[in-house]
C-alpha cells in the first residue's frame, strides 16, 4: 500500500479539480481464446451465450435511456454500441463457433477480435475508429458471461481509475456522481474524453499503469487543468487543492461585476475579447459575459452533430441563428476544418499521416461542391453584415485565391436568384502552418484579416502530435519558436493594417495573456466561460509592462526560459486572481 504522496503526470482531458477516493477497475483477466468444451457441454454454452445476449439487451435499453437524457453525442455513441451487441450476423457467427466446440468466452473473443481486425484495416478512418466499439462490446459481453458484477458500483465520492472506460460505464458513473476519471490509455478524442467534457467531469488520461499503482480507496486529486494526479496527498497539498477548488467557484462569482467594464489595460490599450462558439446557445453565454463578438465558429461541429454534410438550408439556419444572436457584434465562421483528427467523411481513402494530409482548405478545394454549399450558407447568413468567413489550414496563396473565386461565384449565383447577402463579406486566413506564418505578409496583403491557430501552429512548428502521450511532454505552445512565428505574423498584419486574433488555446492560457498583448495582439478569442477571467487579467496590467515582458521573451532560447520570464508576471498580479 502506497502511503507517500506521489504525483503522476498524464494528459489533461477534461478540466476541473476533483478530490476523492480511488475506485479501481482492474483490467479483466484475459480470455483464453483457445478454450474448448466437451461435446456434451455445447448446448449449455449456447444457452449461456444467449442468456448473456438477453441480459445485455436489457442493460443496453436502460443505458440508452440514460444516454438520451445527456446529449445527442452521448446517445449516438451508445446506440452504435447497442447495434453491435444486437447484431444478428455476429450472434450467428459466435453461435457457430460454440457449436464447433469453443467455449462461449473464447467464441466471443475470437469473433469480436476478427471483426475488430477487419475494421482496423478499413480504408475509412471513421470506420476504423469503430474498432474501439467492438473492444468495448466484447469486454461487456465477456463480463456478463462471467457474471462479473457491474463495474459501476462506485461510491458517491469516487474517482474512477481504469485502464479504459467505456461509454456505458461513464453513464452509470454519472448516476453515482463520480467525481473524476483517470485512465491509462485513450486519446483526447476518445469516447471517454468527449463524454467527460460533455458531462463536466474532470479527467486525466494516459497515465500508464495507473490501475496497478493506485490502490482502492486511496485519496486522489485529479487536476483536469494540468493533467496532474496526486496520490495520497498530504494535508498541505489537499488544502492547496481545496482552496483552488473554492477559489475557482468564488472567483467565478466575483467576476460577475466585471461584465460591463471595458477591456482596456491600465494605460488605455483596448483588447477585443471574442468567444469561440460551438453552438448558438454559447453566443448568449458569451454576450452575457460581455464578449465583443464571436471570434471562431467551429463549423465542423455541425458535421459531427449530423454525421454528414448538412444541406445549405440546415447550415444557413444554424449560421444565421448564431449571427442574429450576436448582432450587431461580428461573427467569424471558420469553414469546415475536415480531416486530420477531426471528422473524416468524404476523404477518399486512408491517409497514413492525416495531420499532413487532405485537411482544412485542401479538402474544401478538393470537394468544391461541399465548400460552395457552405459558402452559400455563410453568405445567406450574412444579411445583417456581421459575418466573416475564415479559411483553415491555408499554406499557399493559390488556395486563398481559389477560395475567393468560389466566394465570388456563390455571390453571383445568390445575386441572380435575388437572395440578399453581404457583397463585401470579409474573407480571412487562419495562420496555422509554419509556411503561412513565414508568408504572413503576403497573406495579410491578400486577405481581410488573419487569425492564429496556436495549437496547430505549435504542432506543425514543433513536429509534435499533442494527442500522442509519448510526445505530449514536448508539445508546448509557449516554445520560443512558436512565439517567434506569432511575432512575425503580428508584424506582417500591422504593415497591412489587418487585424490579427489568437483563437487557439494560447489565448486563454493564464500565463500567455500579457505576452500576447506585448506581442501586439488586440483580439483574443476564447471559450465563453474564460472571458471574464481574461478581462480581469487585462484590466490589471499595463501595455508598457507587457512590452517589457515581450522584450525579455525575445531573448529566450528554451521553453523553460519562457516560463521563467512569464512567472515574473505573478509578482505584478494579485496572488488570488489566478487559479488554473
Amino acid at each position: 500500500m502506497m502511503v507517500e504522496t506521489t504525483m503522476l503526470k498524464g494528459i489533461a482531458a477534461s478540466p476541473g479539480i476533483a478530490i476523492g477516493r480511488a475506485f479501481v477497475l482492474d483490467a479483466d483477466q484475459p480470455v483464453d481464446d483457445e478454450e474448448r468444451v466437451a461435446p456434451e457441454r455445447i448446448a449449455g454454452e449456447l444457452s449461456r451465450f444467449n442468456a448473456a445476449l438477453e441480459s445485455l439487451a436489457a442493460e443496453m435499453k436502460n443505458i440508452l435511456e440514460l444516454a438520451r437524457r445527456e446529449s445527442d453525442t452521448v446517445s449516438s455513441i451508445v446506440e452504435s454500441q447497442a447495434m453491435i451487441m444486437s447484431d444478428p450476423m455476429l450472434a450467428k457467427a459466435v453461435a457457430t463457433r460454440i457449436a464447433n466446440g469453443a467455449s462461449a468466452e473464447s467464441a466471443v473473443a475470437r469473433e469480436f477480435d476478427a471483426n475488430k481486425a477487419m475494421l482496423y484495416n478499413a480504408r475509412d478512418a471513421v470506420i476504423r475508429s469503430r474498432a474501439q466499439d467492438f473492444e468495448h462490446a466484447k469486454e461487456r459481453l465477456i463480463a456478463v458471461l462471467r457474471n462479473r458484477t457491474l463495474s459501476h458500483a462506485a461510491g458517491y465520492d469516487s474517482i474512477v481509475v481504469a485502464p479504459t472506460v467505456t461509454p456505458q460505464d461513464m453513464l452509470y458513473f454519472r448516476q453515482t456522481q463520480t467525481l473524476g476519471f483517470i485512465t491509462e490509455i485513450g486519446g483526447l478524442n476518445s469516447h471517454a474524453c468527449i463524454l467527460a467534457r460533455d458531462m463536466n467531469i474532470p479527467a486525466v488520461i494516459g497515465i500508464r499503469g495507473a490501475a496497478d499503482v493506485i490502490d482502492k480507496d486511496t485519496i486522489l486529486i485529479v487536476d483536469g487543468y494540468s493533467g496532474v494526479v496526486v496520490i495520497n496527498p498530504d494535508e498541505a497539498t489537499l488544502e492547496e487543492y481545496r482552496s483552488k477548488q473554492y477559489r475557482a467557484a468564488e472567483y467565478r462569482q466575483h467576476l460577475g461585476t466585471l461584465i460591463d467594464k471595458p477591456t482596456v489595460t491600465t494605460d488605455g490599450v483596448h483588447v477585443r475579447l471574442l468567444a469561440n462558439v460551438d453552438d448558438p446557445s454559447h453566443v448568449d453565454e458569451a454576450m452575457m459575459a460581455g464578449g465583443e463578438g464571436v471570434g471562431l465558429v467551429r463549423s465542423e461541429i455541425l458535421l459531427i452533430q449530423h454525421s454528414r454534410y448538412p444541406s445549405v438550408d440546415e447550415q444557413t439556419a444554424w449560421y444565421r441563428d448564431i449571427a442574429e444572436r450576436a448582432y450587431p457584434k461580428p461573427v467569424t465562421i471558420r469553414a469546415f476544418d475536415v480531416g486530420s483528427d477531426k471528422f473524416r467523411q468524404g476523404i477518399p481513402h486512408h491517409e497514413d499521416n492525416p495531420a499532413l494530409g487532405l485537411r482544412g482548405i485542401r479538402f474544401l478545394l478538393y470537394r468544391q461542391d461541399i465548400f460552395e454549399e457552405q459558402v452559400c450558407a455563410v453568405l445567406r447568413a450574412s444579411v445583417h453584415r456581421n459575418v466573416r468567413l475564415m479559411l483553415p489550414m491555408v499554406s499557399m496563396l493559390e488556395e486563398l485565391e481559389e477560395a475567393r473565386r468560389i466566394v465570388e461565384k456563390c455571390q453571383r449565383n445568390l445575386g441572380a436568384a435575388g437572395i440578399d447577402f453581404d457583397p463585401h463579406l470579409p474573407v480571412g486566413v487562419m495562420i496555422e502552418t509554419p509556411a503561412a506564418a513565414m508568408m504572413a505578409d503576403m497573406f495579410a496583403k491578400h486577405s481581410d484579416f488573419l487569425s492564429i491557430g496556436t495549437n496547430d501552429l505549435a504542432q506543425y512548428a514543433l513536429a509534435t502530435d499533442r494527442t500522442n502521450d509519448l510526445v505530449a511532454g514536448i508539445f508546448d505552445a509557449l516554445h520560443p519558436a512558436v512565439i517567434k512565428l506569432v511575432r512575425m505574423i503580428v508584424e506582417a498584419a500591422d504593415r497591412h493594417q489587418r487585424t490579427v486574433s489568437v483563437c487557439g488555446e494560447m489565448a486563454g492560457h493564464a500565463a500567455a495573456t500579457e505576452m500576447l498583448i506585448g506581442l501586439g495582439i488586440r483580439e483574443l478569442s476564447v471559450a465563453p466561460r474564460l472571458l471574464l477571467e481574461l478581462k480581469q487579467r487585462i484590466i490589471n496590467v499595463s501595455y508598457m509592462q507587457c512590452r517589457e515582458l515581450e522584450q525579455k521573451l525575445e531573448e529566450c532560447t528554451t521553453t523553460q526560459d519562457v516560463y521563467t520570464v512569464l512567472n515574473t508576471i505573478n509578482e505584478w498580479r494579485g496572488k488570488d486572481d489566478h487559479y488554473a
Partner: protein
Amino acid sequence: MIETKVRVTNRAGLHTRPAAMLVKVASQFDSEIYLERDGFQINAKSIIGVMTLAAEQGCELGLTVEGEDEARAAAAMEELFSSGFGEQ
C-alpha cells in the same frame, strides 16, 4: 426472391448513420435481405456487415430479398437508397 440493383446516392455513402438507418429498416422485415458488392455479400440486418461494405457515393450494390414480405421489404430498401437516407 427479388434481385435488383441499388445505387448509393447520398454524399456520405453508407457511413455510420446511414448504415444504422439501413439496419433499422431492414430489421423491420421478416425476409432475408442481402447486399452485394464486388462479389462480397452481407446481411443487411447486420451493422457490421453494412459497415464493412464501405460503400461510398456512386457505387452500385446488388440487392437480394427473399421471404414472405419480400415485395414490401425490397420497396422499402429501394426507397431508402433513392432518398439518399434522408440527407438533403
